[in-house]
């Protein structure tokens, strides 16, 4: 593996980590909103 591949691996890894975290935030937001709506209905 040449050096440039390491460079791209690092940049891609950074955005994959941020993407996964942002995805988890979106998932938790929608889950909490759904829960709040259910509690409100009761």
């Amino acid at each position: 593996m040449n050096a440039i591949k390491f460079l791209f691996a690092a940049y891609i890894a950074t955005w994959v980590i941020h993407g996964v975290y942002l995805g988890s935030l979106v998932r938790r937001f929608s889950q909490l909103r759904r829960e709040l709506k259910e509690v409100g209905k009761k």
Partner: protein
Amino acid sequence: MRKTFTILSVITAVLLAYALYQALVVAPTDAQQGEVYRIIYYHVPSAWTAFLLFFINFIASIQYLVSRKPSTQAAAKWVVLAIGVAGVVACFLPAVQRLIPAGMRPSAVATTVLLIPIFYFVIGWLFPGDRLDVLAVTTAEVGVVFCTIVLITGPIWARPVWGIWWAPGDIRLTSTLVLWLIYVSYLVLRRFSNSAQTQMLAAALAVFGALDVPLVYFSIWFFRTQHPQPVIGGGGSMDPRMLRTLLDSWIAFLFFAFLVCWSRFRLELLHREVEEAHAMESLAGEGVAAKASLPLNRSPR
């Protein structure tokens, strides 16, 4: 609020794209390391952002701990002010200046010390009461994400440059890993403990955890490490285009971190709102159950 968030998101996206362009195209190639050195444009800003977030977490945790008692809160204000004033004055005393590592400017140290009371009072003013705890959990979680990036991009850079993924025993690498583990344990404590004391325990853990941040930062100043020695402010030299690209990247990452923290902060508020709604619901349920258990012929007094 939504409009501000959208505008900030657009600005952040432009800044990140510009920083990426600078990092990959504008910044010159390093004579010794070649193209792979460009990893620093993500690795270093991520580390600085993580340190800043852990620092905010530390201040918010202290504020949260002392806010339990008004007398402690008042005393803490004076202690923080005293630390700020004494720290700044000390940086200009010859005896203290001899302890400052070569290449590090006393004015830079004084400015950093001055940030402690500034952050303390600004955070206390902007985040009253339980919002301090919300800020603490927010900055810890986002800080761990940035610290994870540091721990992943570091070895990816090290493999082609050093020939190894990790240098066992290197104090910078080890202390960063310990820092990450401390904040992961902080998040685990917050996630799985149901005790009424969880917030206090987490705040105390955060205060001790933050003590590792100066160790991580200063390790390359005081010890010989496999990790490169400091270039900025450390007596080393750097091409001005490289330095500008590094600072541009950091600004872009700061904007991004701010947006992520904002979202995480709102998420935590929503989470507490849901918990409160559940608590109210169960209280109402208990009330109905208590009424139902009253004997039919017994009228309330």
